[in-house]
């Protein structure tokens, strides 16, 4: 980046439920990725475990204090900031973020960007179906010519959190004491030992007597005094929760198909051939090939016969999936949007609140 632009670079944040991505506009990689938590009342707490608005406000003050003085090393006053957020972000959270930034830190302007929409910028395309699988939920939104098809969006409570719960109950069958494992140990076991297996193997494993040899077992040491048996079956089955249909016959692949059902017929094929996966959970080994297998399998079902889609194609963004949305924000933030579309201090103090998503002035087409 040229020197004169370094001076102007602005903070870009993507505050995820589990991890926060932090960096500057115009840069290709976030500077840091860290857990979304703050030290509050003497303990580490997740930012999203707030009790009430005052509690959230105090935690956000501490959180942004770390952002500015531990990571950005920059005074916040009279400077802009770019925040990438999910469309499902709770209103109280958005409002509190704006209040803390404008009132407590005195920033000059705030550019809020939708994570699904900006992720497309990393590909330089305008039409794609974006599936974000994060910690708490999976959200699927088709985007056509730069416009999010809000009426077609799908969301399910599937993500790292449900995988961890599944892994925990699988571990508990084989190990006593597994019920007290912390979220971080479960995450570590998932990341280092587990993978998304093939559809054919998953079908066998769900039978009472599978006719295949399991993959090797891993002995996982916990806190230096006990050993957890992570059997081959556990390693392969941890992610299955994403592909098992729930009581309403919904799962990750049906979200994509249901979203396609809700868009215009002549857009369906184009979207199916432009799928973008974002969010850390999609980085698991075997995830993409399994998702494709499942999509093709579900296509045979009666409910999706109308779709008439022959193939599914997936994009590869110039990033790791867990920071694709951040990168989109870093690209948008480097353009003139930062000056023309951001909410300024004066606009905010006019009525002391954020405008709704629907009437945000920047909720329009591409830059």
């Amino acid at each position, binding site marked *: 980046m040229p*020197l004169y632009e370094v*001076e102007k*670079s602005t903070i870009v944040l993507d505050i995820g439920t589990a991890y926060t*991505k932090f960096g500057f506009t115009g840069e*290709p*990689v976030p*500077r*840091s990725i860290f857990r979304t938590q703050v030290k509050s009342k003497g303990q580490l707490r997740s930012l999203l475990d707030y009790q009430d608005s005052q509690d959230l406000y105090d935690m956000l003050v501490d959180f942004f*204090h770390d952002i500015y*003085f*531990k*990571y*950005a*090393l920059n*005074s916040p*006053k009279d400077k802009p900031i770019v925040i990438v957020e999910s469309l499902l972000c709770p209103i109280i959270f958005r409002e509190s973020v704006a209040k803390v930034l*404008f*009132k*407590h*830190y*005195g920033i000059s302007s705030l550019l809020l960007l939708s994570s699904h929409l900006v992720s497309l*910028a*990393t*590909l*330089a*395309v305008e039409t794609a179906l974006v599936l974000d699988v994060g910690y708490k939920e999976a959200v699927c939104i088709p985007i056509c010519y730069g416009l999010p098809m809000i009426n077609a969006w799908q969301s399910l409570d599937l993500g790292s959190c449900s995988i961890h719960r599944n892994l925990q109950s699988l571990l508990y069958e084989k190990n006593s004491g597994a019920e007290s494992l912390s979220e971080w140990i479960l*995450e*570590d076991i998932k*990341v*280092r030992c587990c*993978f*998304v297996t*093939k559809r054919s193997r998953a079908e066998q494993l769900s039978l009472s007597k599978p006719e295949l040899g399991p*993959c*090797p077992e*891993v*002995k996982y*040491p916990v806190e230096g005094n006990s050993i957890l048996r992570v059997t081959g079956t556990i390693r392969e089955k941890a992610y299955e929760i994403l592909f098992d249909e729930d009581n309403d016959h919904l799962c990750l692949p049906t979200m994509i198909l249901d979203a396609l059902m809700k868009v215009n017929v002549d857009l369906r094929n184009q979207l199916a051939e432009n*799928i973008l996966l974002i969010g850390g959970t999609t*980085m698991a*080994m*075997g995830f*993409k*090939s399994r998702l*494709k297998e499942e999509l093709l399998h579900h296509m045979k079902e009666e409910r999706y016969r109308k779709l008439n889609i022959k193939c599914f194609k*997936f*994009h*590869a963004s110039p*990033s*790791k999936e867990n920071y694709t949305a951040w990168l989109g924000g870093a*690209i*948008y933030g*480097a*353009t*003139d*949007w930062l000056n023309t579309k951001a909410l300024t*201090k004066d606009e905010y*103090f006019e009525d002391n609140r954020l405008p709704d998503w629907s009437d945000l002035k920047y909720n329009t087409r*591409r*830059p």
Partner: protein
Amino acid sequence: MSAGFLDIDCVKYACTCGLLKTLQQLYFCRYCSELRCTFCVSHEVDSHFCGKCCENLPSAEARVKKNRCVNCFICPSCRQELSTRAASKQPANPEESKATKRTYYLSCLCCRWSSRDIGLPDQTAATGSWPKRESIHSNRIQEIVSMYKGLQEKEKLDKEFFKKKQKEKIISYTDKTGITAAALRKRIGLPEDKPILKPKNAVKIVTPSKADENIDDFDEEVLTKSINLLEITSIDQRLLQPDVQPKEISNIFPIQKILSIKRSLRCRRCEHNVSKPEYNPNSIKFKIQLFAYYHIPEVRIVTVEPLRAGQACELILKFTNPTQHQTTVSFLPFDSPIEVKEAIPEEGAISQEDSLEELDKSSLTPSKKKSSSGTKLMSLVDTHITLTTSRSSARALSPRSIAESINCTVDIPSSTFILPPRDDAAEYDDFNEVHNIQDDKKLVVWRKSNKAYIKLVVTPNEDMPIDTTVTTGFTMSHLYTNTIASVADNKKPQKFNHNMRVILKLGKSVGLN
């Protein structure tokens, strides 16, 4: 938590913002004469430095270096600082040169990881020569950014052109010659003649990403090969290198250490510093430090009788005057109102501040400059007023109510007591203490130099269960001598009463005997 003489946590002062802090955690703005804490002052980055090698970097340089030290690295395995180790290499051919060559590598003294583990060749210089890695996608992303920038510029031009065009239309319709070419074209159904727009620089459109049908993200080997956990990175190790996020330990790479900063703290109301450190990273001193500990009488709990529900008991507190001026302390009920000064500084206050410029030059704000420039046009004055109000409403934090409930009442004494000024020499003078202070013997138990031991009577609430933490509080009013104004105007020091709420945790209640 038991109430003890050395336990300072059991006495809390309510900051102006409503948070409860110990006296040691509070600041005192001498210009506003109000308590401040780290929550209600504004923080600013003062200087950048490396916490390991203590190198000082100007902030522009720190920014260019991405806030990282060039010479110091942290361990990619355990995040501790890496140390540079020297190794001497024997020349391959002993006859060639007799001098042994010194080479350097990085090693972690905590987890024994070293740069040799990943096959990084030793360096010939101790600092500054370690290879840097760029993201493999940076060129592509740079192209995308320039494309979006260009497209925006084009759109802007389009809009301007459209506006101009509309103007022309209006003019031409009112033209005396009647129908215009554009209107004519419209009438006969021809499309409007749109000239091709030429942005200053043609936008270089990057090739859009192409989606692929074939995915190959499953490694068959995982089904048969057993894994060694020690060779696989944890999520924390991966996230230390966001661009690569290596899965294998063999791919981790030394991380440049993030710089540290020194902060200065500024009062939000008057914009004066309450704390400003010295620039040198080796120095732990401050240029400005307005700790409340130097201005506000300190309260400590000495003894308290066993606390029983509904029974009065005796509480002895020690008060210490830290200032060079005699003060008078009086007690008010806990709930008595405390006046909080307006958020907008008055005109008089500004002129006073200006004369103190040499103390703190950076305190001058744009709006103040405007007022002193002296243009008295009505409209300008108006804008100035809206400017200050919007600014101050932006900056002022509304105080919150105190998050502690009082379950024990204090009999507020009607008499006051005096605390003499601090005299460092008197500390060594154990004998011959003569003071002719007329004390209310019921209130003051004992006194020595600038300290006084005060007896209060407290009564825990009637309905309090056993083993409840007893919390009591009062409003302390002390005569404060402000020397700031006297320095500036050669006036007499201002004296006024400063009130604040003090909350005491006396310990657990016990049963009746």
